């Protein structure tokens, strides 16, 4: 998108939403509220991605990240806490160390100044199309990402099988023969 006043305003709006929701997500006492704040933060990020011409990533952000990951978190919250449970605040020492560490990291990262080549949008740039992504993912040559694409399927498979195995209700004292692997549950 062309850099105009509109995009600037939109950018700052999204930024405010991302940072506001992000801060809420890590400070709000009620866990469910912070999960919802996280969702807001991720929506804001999706908006930012649209602004930066990455529709596909924005879509993935909404579908997979919000639709999958955050829902996971909300499930976990609902399963393991009673609604509205407030937990004890952390000690002052933890707050101080948290703020210090965060400040150190922030300082470290912000210390950098982008090189001149990066400040402006390359005039010849073309937005990445979904086709291009698909071709690159399935390309077996040195330029492609076929191997990680294959490997990540193994990763997801093993994670799902493993997750199903340990989350399954375990009868105390049961032996292996009575259990099923739960492989099909994924």
């Amino acid at each position, binding site marked *: 998108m062309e850099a105009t006043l509109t995009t600037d305003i939109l950018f700052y709006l999204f930024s405010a939403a991302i940072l506001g929701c992000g801060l809420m997500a*890590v400070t709000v006492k009620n866990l469910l509220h912070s999960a919802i704040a996280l969702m807001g*933060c991720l929506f804001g990020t999706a908006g930012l991605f649209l602004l930066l011409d*990455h529709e596909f990533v924005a879509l993935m952000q909404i579908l997979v990240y919000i639709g999958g990951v955050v829902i996971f*978190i909300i499930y976990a919250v609902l*399963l393991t806490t009673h609604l509205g449970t407030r937990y004890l605040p952390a000690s002052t020492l933890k707050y101080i160390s948290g703020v210090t560490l965060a400040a150190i990291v922030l300082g470290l*990262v912000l210390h950098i100044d982008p090189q001149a080549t990066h400040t402006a949008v390359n005039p010849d740039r073309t937005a990445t199309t979904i086709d291009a992504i698909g071709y690159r993912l399935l390309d077996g040559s040195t330029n492609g990402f076929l191997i990680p694409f294959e490997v*990540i399927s193994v990763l*997801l498979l093993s994670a799902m099988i493993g997750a199903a195995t340990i*989350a399954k209700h375990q009868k105390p004292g049961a032996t292996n023969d009575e259990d099923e692997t739960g492989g099909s549950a994924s």
Partner: protein
Amino acid sequence: MNLTACLSLSAILFSFGIFGLMTRRKIIAMLLAIELMLNAALINCVAFAYYAPAGADTDVGSILPIFIVAITSAEMAVALAVIVAMYRKRKVIDIERLEDLHD
């Protein structure tokens, strides 16, 4: 809107994540803070791809997020399972109360 702004945004988000990780005590809340950090990385990828100079591999700006999101979801699936298993046995997900293992 320029690269510095985007990077600053992601850096601040990342430091929020670290802050949350240090101050939160429930495992879910800590994971949530880690999600913020990962999200900061996504912003970086896209911003770098958008502002890339000529000759850069801009596709990576879309492909790297795909893998990051996939990895995150695998991690979260395992996390959910562990949390559920632990909660079922101990009714505790507060990290401070996980004190059976200590010196």
